């Protein structure tokens, strides 16, 4: 019996053609613990089937990864999958010959693909107005409101009652300052938190033409009276020492974790860092809003990155990419990723799975980011699609720094930012007329 099996299987092995594994190159910007997550995902996918092998390679920061991808593409040896940050979306789309929309990849490969299972506020950012998903939402976060419960107690504030509106934030900051706190409130990514997400949260446009989804002739619109009012509030807080500017990008993250600043609007993904390193009890709440604005709070805008598929590869390889994306969308896999990293769950089933498992109860505050996003989006809150977006963010940083430093009024700063930013949009429109 045994001998027969051996002979038969050997015969089969000789007769059947040797099946080489198709390699899928995946270039990403996830370092540290996130890099481990990426490697584990690839490992598990590879172990679950034998036709394809996903090979992830760390290529530095988001800029560096993009540069590597571009250099490789121009030289004719691009990877299959490239991780690109969210502000690069419009620029990626404009490189029509370089990318293949994800929806197309799935369709060509015959993969079951239902766009409706993806969380609207997450996938909407990466979807064309006609509903075609362009890139695969991989790691998305959203701004939330972190606050230091111990500092609250010391200032006479109720640690279980975080300020929900901006007027309340100002009051809380004043109390914190009165109790001796040097940095009551700070923020990261000024553009992302105080203008982009601010707009979506209040259901107003950040840019015309539905924030750019409606056409290349979109222009910036964040200098309305509401926006001016908000920035003026922040500027006044800055003058009184209630709001302390701690730098561009995410440099302010460390100031919250170290306890220096008591309240911070920062990414939801900061949660892991806080849990491990902070010496104080901390809480998470929703982004503050102005209660007198109709439609607030709506939903916030995502940050993070997505996976783009580059062109010029063989159909068999694209089949592997499709299979990998399908794997990543499985409820168990997406739920595990969400719980492990603090990034938003990519699909609705994965959110429900996490909820049912009691994860949110055990890890207080981790559901805030999700509830901010699991809503039906409106035309004004689906996301932002602007060309040269990175430069526009830098312009915002520069102008707002002038405002915090007292050199410009809020209105001047916003008007100048809009004017300068629009130049970039005009240039993008001109360059992509076809």
């Amino acid at each position: 019996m045994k001998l027969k099996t051996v002979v038969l299987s050997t015969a089969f092995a000789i007769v059947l053609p040797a099946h080489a594994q198709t390699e899928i190159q995946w270039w990403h910007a996830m370092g540290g613990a996130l890099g481990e997550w990426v490697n584990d995902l690839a490992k598990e996918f590879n172990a679950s089937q034998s036709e394809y092998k996903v090979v992830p390679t760390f290529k530095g920061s988001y800029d560096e990864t993009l540069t590597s991808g571009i250099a490789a593409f121009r030289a004719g040896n691009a990877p299959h999958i490239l991780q690109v940050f969210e502000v690069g979306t419009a620029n990626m789309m404009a490189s029509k010959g370089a990318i293949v929309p994800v929806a197309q990849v799935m369709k060509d490969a015959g993969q079951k693909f239902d766009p409706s299972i993806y969380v609207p506020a997450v996938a909407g950012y990466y979807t064309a107005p006609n509903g075609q998903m362009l890139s695969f939402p991989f790691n998305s976060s959203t701004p939330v409101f972190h606050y230091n419960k111990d500092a609250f107690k010391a200032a006479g504030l109720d640690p279980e009652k975080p300020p929900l509106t901006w007027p309340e934030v100002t009051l809380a900051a004043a109390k914190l300052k009165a109790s001796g706190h040097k940095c009551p409130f700070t923020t990261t990514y000024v553009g992302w938190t105080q203008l982009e997400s601010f707009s979506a949260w209040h259901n107003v446009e950040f840019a015309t033409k539905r924030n750019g989804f409606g056409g290349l002739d979109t222009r910036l619109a964040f200098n309305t009276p509401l926006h001016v009012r908000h920035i003026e509030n922040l500027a006044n807080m800055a003058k009184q020492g209630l709001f302390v500017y701690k730098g561009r990008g995410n440099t302010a993250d460390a100031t919250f974790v170290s306890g220096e600043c008591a309240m911070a609007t920062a990414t939801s993904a900061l949660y892991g860092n806080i849990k491990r390193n902070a010496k104080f009890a901390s809480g998470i709440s929703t982004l503050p809003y102005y209660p007198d604005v109709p439609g607030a709070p709506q939903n916030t805008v995502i940050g993070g990155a997505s996976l783009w598929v580059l062109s010029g590869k063989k159909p068999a390889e694209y089949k592997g990419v499709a299979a990998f994306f399908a794997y990543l969308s499985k409820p168990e896999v997406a739920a595990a990723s969400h719980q492990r990293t603090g990034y938003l769950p990519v699909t609705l089933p994965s959110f429900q799975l996490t909820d049912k498992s009691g994860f949110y109860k055990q890890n207080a505050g981790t559901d805030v980011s999700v509830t901010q996003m699991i809503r039906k989006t409106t035309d004004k809150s689906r996301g932002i699609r602007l060309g040269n977006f990175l430069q526009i963010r830098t312009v915002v940083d520069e102008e707002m720094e002038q405002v915090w430093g007292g050199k410009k009024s809020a209105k001047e700063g916003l008007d100048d930012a809009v004017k300068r930013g629009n130049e970039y949009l005009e240039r993008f429109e001109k360059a992509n007329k076809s």
Partner: protein
Amino acid sequence: MVERRPALALLSHLVLILGVLIVAFPVYVTFVASTQTAQEIAQSRPLSLVPGDNMVETYSRALFGGKGEFGSTKAPVGRMLWISLVMAITIAVGKIAISLLSAFAIVYFRFPFRSLVFWMVFITLMLPVEVRIYPTYQVVSDFGLLNTYAGLTVPLIASATATFLFRQFFLGVPDELVEAARIDGAGPMRFFKDVLVPLSSTSSAALCVNQFIYGWNQYLWPLLVTTTDDMAPVVMGIKRMVAGESYTEWNVVMATAMLAMIPPALVVLLMQRWFVKGLVDAEK
């Protein structure tokens, strides 16, 4: 020194100590950070100046990999150190060799386009690599040198600092030496080998240190040119640990940075001997 002036000697020491404090202070901060735990670094305000007691654990984790504090495994640094070593030595030796020859030709011969050649070499300093990175990548790719030691090193040998320095040095070499060599019947290459090269040993030593460190510290170019994780040099590895978006174990990063500084430091120590030796030879 020539005469003993204790006041001047004391002043010299003071100035040097101050200089060392300023210049070496950031390195000290790195060291302190590498001896603490990640929490201590995140929580301390300001960062403490006294070393912590987590040194052994942090360094062994940096060197040998293993489970990180928070469920992440770090790749061992050994392979990366080896790659960096090969890169740095190749670049240093290659550059010095090529530049000695070029500077010799430019200074001691008269040939058409001599000035142009010097300026062509010199201009390589004026276009940072980031600006020409896509076409350079393409050239390397066309030559089939991606992900190889050659691809990592050869494009970096193109620059001009060494040629310029040797040109300066050769111009300062007394003419009598050339006359003497001529009288002895030595040809240009004999002169080069027996007189110029030994004389330029201090400059070569300085350049060796400088180029070794330059090659050692390369980050962007290796990032592009390597396509598999096992060809990454050490500085790339350090960056890899700085996650950016999420959690960074700063203590391990700092420990790796300290380890990454050891080979250059050794080179500096070794070169000190050459400095002295060159000086002694010049006295003859």
